[in-house]
């Protein structure tokens, strides 16, 4: 019994980690710009593909040992994925911001950016799926009936670490303060000598970097890549961010794990085809009781 609970908990945390990491990106950008970056799920997908190419390069072209390839693939993927996020900001969102465009157009632009990323991938790489190359050999452990792999534990630990780093940045550094300040009063930020665009770029770097990290870990855990892999998981992560209280990084983190837990629980008791139906229903009920999400206290409390 206890073993079953722990087993499900580990599974929930691992599955929720992906939602949590992706939800962080939604919530950061929303907190700073009140922009729902609907392309973010596809940035996760791009992250997984970048990881694929980077890992393949290090393993086959550079012929590095697996652990070295992994150690290089993680930071490089995060950096390259950040650059994709920043590029999106520069070519799509910033011009609209300059023109003071209506929110509706910005949201539609974000949706289109996501579709462009998916279809560009499809056009460039074709519809065939890619198998992610194994960099390390997974070990399976069985402790008192609880079965887990070292990769699962690594995913959970990495996600928790990433959250604490991000939380530190947002609450303790001047850049983090500036991010919170923008969410409260955009107008006064330049008056403090703060170049607003730089802060927005940093926001996209952090959010997309997290999506890149999720991309690698997802590809290592479920090593089949396809262009639409970011769509559903992106939507779910967005919902997780909303349920947690969009704009609050603790909310994104908690919402992600909550969604992971609900899904794992559903599968433990029902046929797996019920998973999304019941998971979304539970989230809908939570939102009905707390429309601002779990951490959405006041409207002014963002990030």
């Amino acid at each position, binding site marked *: 019994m206890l073993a079953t609970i722990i087993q499900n908990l580990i599974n929930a945390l691992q599955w929720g980690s992906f939602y949590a990491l992706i939800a962080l990106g939604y919530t950061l950008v929303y907190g700073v710009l009140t922009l729902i970056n609907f392309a973010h799920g596809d940035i996760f997908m791009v992250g997984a593909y970048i990881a694929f190419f980077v890992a393949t390069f290090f393993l086959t072209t550079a012929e590095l040992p697996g652990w070295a390839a992994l150690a290089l693939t993680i930071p490089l993927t995060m950096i390259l994925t950040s650059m994709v996020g920043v590029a999106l900001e520069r070519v799509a969102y910033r011009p609209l911001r300059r023109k003071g465009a209506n929110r509706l157009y910005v949201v539609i632009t974000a949706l289109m950016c996501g579709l462009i990323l998916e279809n560009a991938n499809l056009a460039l790489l074709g519809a065939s799926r890619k198998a992610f190359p194994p960099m390390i050999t997974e070990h399976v452990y069985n402790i008192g009936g609880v079965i887990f792999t070292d990769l699962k534990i690594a995913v959970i630990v990495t996600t928790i670490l990433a959250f604490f780093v991000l939380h530190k940045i947002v609450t303790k550094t001047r850049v983090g303060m500036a991010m919170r300040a923008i969410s409260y009063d955009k*107008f006064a930020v330049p008056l*403090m000598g703060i170049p607003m665009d730089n802060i927005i770029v940093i926001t996209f770097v952090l959010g997309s970097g997290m999506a890149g990290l999720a991309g690698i870990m997802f590809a290592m855990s479920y090593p089949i890549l396809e262009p639409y892999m970011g769509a559903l998981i992106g939507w779910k992560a967005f919902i997780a961010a909303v349920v947690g209280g969009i704009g609050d990084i603790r909310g994104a983190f908690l919402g992600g794990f909550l969604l992971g837990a609900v899904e794992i629980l559903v599968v433990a008791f029902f046929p797996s085809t019920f998973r999304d139906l019941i998971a979304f229903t539970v989230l809908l009920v939570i939102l009905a009781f707390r429309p601002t999400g779990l951490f959405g206290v006041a409207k002014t409390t963002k990030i």
Partner: protein
Amino acid sequence: MLLSVENLEVKYGNIQPLHGISFHVNEGEIVTLIGANGAGKTTSLYSICRLAPPEAPRVIAGDIKFRGESILKTRPSDVVKKLKMALVPEGRHIFGNLTVMENLELATYSRERDADLKTEYQRIFDLFPRLHERRKQRSESLSGGEQQMLAVGRAMMTGCNFLLLDEPSMGLAPRLKYDLFRTLKKLNEEGMTILLVEQNAHLALHLAHRGYVLDTGKLAAAGSSKDLLGNPDVKKAYLGG
């Protein structure tokens, strides 16, 4: 001349609130810009600070010069960082979701990392002891007067030596008003150049060395504070007879 505004004309969309105004501020001076509501005082300050539309207007003619060089192409954050001019905006615009201390810290964003900030924070707290008491509180919870002190303290923490203030006395109890103006005088004696926008012309002219009177986007009068206080037209229109 530290700052000079020359025949400035600006527009918000199709609305033109400034029709060619000129004024200047010398180093070490307190200059005041007075005028009725809607005269274009805030618009002038936003233009000087190079803030971006839609809140701020765009310049269509004339120039704004800092030490003789046009700053029309300067970014608003560089007005603070490089020119060391800081605005205390109308309505304060403090960051209510940050603590008092965080508001002050944030203002040091563009400064050298090794600047001796400790003594500067102390200086702010000496000027405004209330801020020290409340430094760990969310600034939303401050009273109006305390928020104004924070807005001034925050501007000072940018390391500016030119302070622009937009109706800082608005909404303050008379006592706090006098305290604030005394503080401004003290800052000026320590070397701070000040451009003060006020509706309370009496108070402003008693503090300032010189003044300009703005009337619906045009200059109506200019001169030393003494002259303006004695000017019958100004008296009638802005000093209540």
